[in-house]
């Protein structure tokens, strides 16, 4: 019988979970979430400042580079509670960008940039392209050396999260025929290089990024020898944190639906007394508990060779399946109101579609697991 990972929970995770729960509840009530949907940047700069002060951006950055030197396991409770309260902001993007540097940056790049990210400079990754491939090494964008010693970029990136507010964008390109990562200073981009995209999860922001004509110093190329390892690492971190965010969301969409089942009356009875509603919401809840166990197991085992990948893919697959089901039922169980923009069920259903679309859905991760386990 193969080892598929196990559960563990650190003291640091415990205290972060506690703080994150009350912070997100306070700073991201649903009315505020709705307001920020209408906001161009999509997040509250004041809340971002507080998050920076709490040290959450530096959690998984090594101490040598200005971080707390903890692990991604400690980022998971924070991300989970952000997901639970739909707290908007570039935390996910910036954390992923920092991990790209940790795994693939040169010593110089890490020394210059990581401390700034720990202090709240916003960064993001530009990985997706029109091919729609979840394999991050399938890249069409290119970086070619210029006569002047710079790198000239070409191609178009899609779904670049939080690009409009980021100071640094790390993009995947083909360089000398191999996958590579490059850092782009957003301030150096032409105004029309970024186009805000219409995305399904309206609490989030993403841009298309046109790289044609962009030139960057050669020193902005991340360590080419570690590019593929860095992409593999990013892929798993993205899925781990997405699973955590979805898990938190599942808890609230279940709670939200339960409130309705306990107050809405039809045929003279609370609708929650009908088993056609009660049993599916119980199934969603049981599945949520299973998801949470997977998420914290993936967090705990993340650094273990082999097992970390298995546990992470299981967590993402389970989180996708569970949030999709819970939010889908949430819409249905609110009746006509469930069909409205005002009903919060849609926020969670859209969230599920978004995360399934980014870095692989349940079916895709199961295929990968089949290759690993069967």
């Amino acid at each position, binding site marked *: 019988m193969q080892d598929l990972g196990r559960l563990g929970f650190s003291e640091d995770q415990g205290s972060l979970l*506690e703080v994150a729960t009350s912070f997100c509840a306070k700073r991201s009530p649903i009315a505020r979430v709705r307001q920020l949907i209408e906001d161009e940047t999509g997040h509250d700069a004041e809340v971002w400042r507080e998050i920076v002060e709490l040290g959450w951006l530096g959690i998984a950055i090594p101490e040598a580079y200005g971080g707390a030197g903890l692990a991604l396991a400690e980022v998971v409770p924070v991300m989970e509670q952000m997901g639970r309260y739909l707290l908007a902001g570039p935390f996910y993007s910036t954390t992923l960008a920092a991990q790209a540097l940790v795994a693939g940056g040169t010593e110089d790049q890490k020394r210059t940039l990581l401390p700034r990210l720990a202090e709240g400079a916003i960064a993001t990754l530009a990985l997706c392209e029109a091919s729609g491939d979840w394999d991050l090494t399938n890249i069409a964008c290119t970086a070619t050396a210029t006569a002047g010693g710079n790198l000239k970029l070409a191609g178009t990136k899609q779904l670049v999260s939080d690009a409009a507010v980021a100071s640094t964008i790390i993009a995947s390109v083909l360089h000398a025929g191999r996958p590579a990562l490059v850092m782009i200073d957003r301030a150096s981009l032409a105004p029309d290089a970024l186009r805000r995209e219409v995305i399904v999860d309206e609490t989030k922001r993403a841009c298309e990024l046109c790289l044609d004509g962009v030139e960057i110093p050669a020193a902005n190329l991340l360590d080419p020898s570690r590019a593929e390892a860095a992409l593999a690492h990013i892929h798993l971190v993205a899925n781990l944190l997405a699973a955590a965010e979805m898990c938190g969301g599942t808890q609230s969409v279940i709670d939200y639906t339960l409130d309705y089942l306990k107050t809405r009356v039809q045929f003279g009875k609370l609708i929650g*007394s009908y088993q056609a509603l009660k049993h599916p919401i119980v199934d969603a809840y*049981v599945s949520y508990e*299973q998801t949470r166990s*997977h998420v914290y197991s993936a967090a705990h085992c993340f650094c273990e060779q082999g097992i970390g990948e298995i546990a992470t893919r299981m967590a993402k697959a389970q989180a996708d399946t569970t949030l999709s089901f819970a939010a889908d039922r949430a819409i249905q169980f609110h009746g006509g109101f469930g069909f409205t923009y005002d009903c919060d069920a849609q926020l969670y259903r859209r969230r599920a579609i978004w995360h399934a679309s980014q870095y692989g859905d349940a079916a895709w991760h199961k295929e990968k697991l089949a290759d690993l386990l069967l």
Partner: protein
Amino acid sequence: MTDVDPKDLHAFAEAADAWFKENVNRDPGFMLPLTFMEVGTDQQFDFLQTWQNKVYEAGYLGAAWPKEYGGGGLPQAFQTEATKAMRRHGGPIFLNAIGLNWTGPLLLDMGSEAQRAKYLKGILSAEDIWCQGFSEPDNGSDLGNAQTRAVRDGEHYVVTGSKIWTTLGKYARYMILLARTEADTSRKYDGLTFFLAPMKIDGVETRPIRKLTGEHGFTQTFFREARIPADEIVGVEGGGWKVAMRTLEYERGARGGQAGGYVSVGSNAWDVLDLARKMTRGSKPALEDPATRAKMIDFMIDIQSNALCGQRAAFSPLNTDRPTGLALSSKLMHTDFAQRMNAFAIGLTGPGGGYYVGDPNAVDGGWWTRSYLNSFSATIGGGTSQIQRNIIGEHVLGLPKS
């Protein structure tokens, strides 16, 4: 009692490992039951009774129960090691489940001193087999409506009525019995009383019932003016519902204190994986079929979900919002999953799925079909999956009663 010297624990674990390695007989020459609900022949019964007694005498069952009642008086960690060792070596199930897992912890929790002294040792040694008289022909899920009557007559209660689906009814010396001592209470629950009833007395008769597998398993149990001593009540007269509910918590694993070991064994995803490797689809191993691969991964995720949820109980900060949620969901998670997996495995055997236990051509001796059919014991017995969903909905999620 909570201090464990790691050296002692380690030595105990090693000794247990060696003992089970030496003493487990994997192939007694006849088919062994997968669960305590499947003991169908005297041969199986004798074998399993002897086995339980032997493990108890060696100190690997009830290791954490108090010494004065026949237990080992050790911290729980010791029993956990013993249980791991027996599992590692494929030891058979313990048949006295209703004693070891439900009645025993119940008596330690709510029984009188005299009751503990009288019953606990016999439960561990398997000398006294226990059965459970809750369900009736007309009252199953609606247990609170039980109608078997118990009427006080001097130092006895006189019991009349019938219980059904009595697991081990044929072999049991004692029954935990829920009977109605008062007929006209305003709440149906208030007329119930919980008895420790002797089975081998006049007026108690069991009649075997054949299971869907064709074997004999449980019985219907008839009471015709059977006389039960009045001091064999747990709790008080009229207080039986509370005791029965507590019993169900032990039965469903929502509460700890069981004697240890296990009372059922089954296949896991890796056994199904072996099957998928050896069966063929389109002249290739079934495991190369994409639909089969996807299903196998679903089962592995499920099996891992269940294992991890078991581990999560130890991390209380992860269980603050709905503290009873995991415990009350556990039965549903495990039993529904096992049923789905066994049904899928039958499909993997292709035309061979047409065979049944007993035919020499049956794949794996017919194990998969037998396991699937028997899996309903767990989705029906101990409260059906539908009732489990009601319980989770109402007691964990706070939904109104159906």
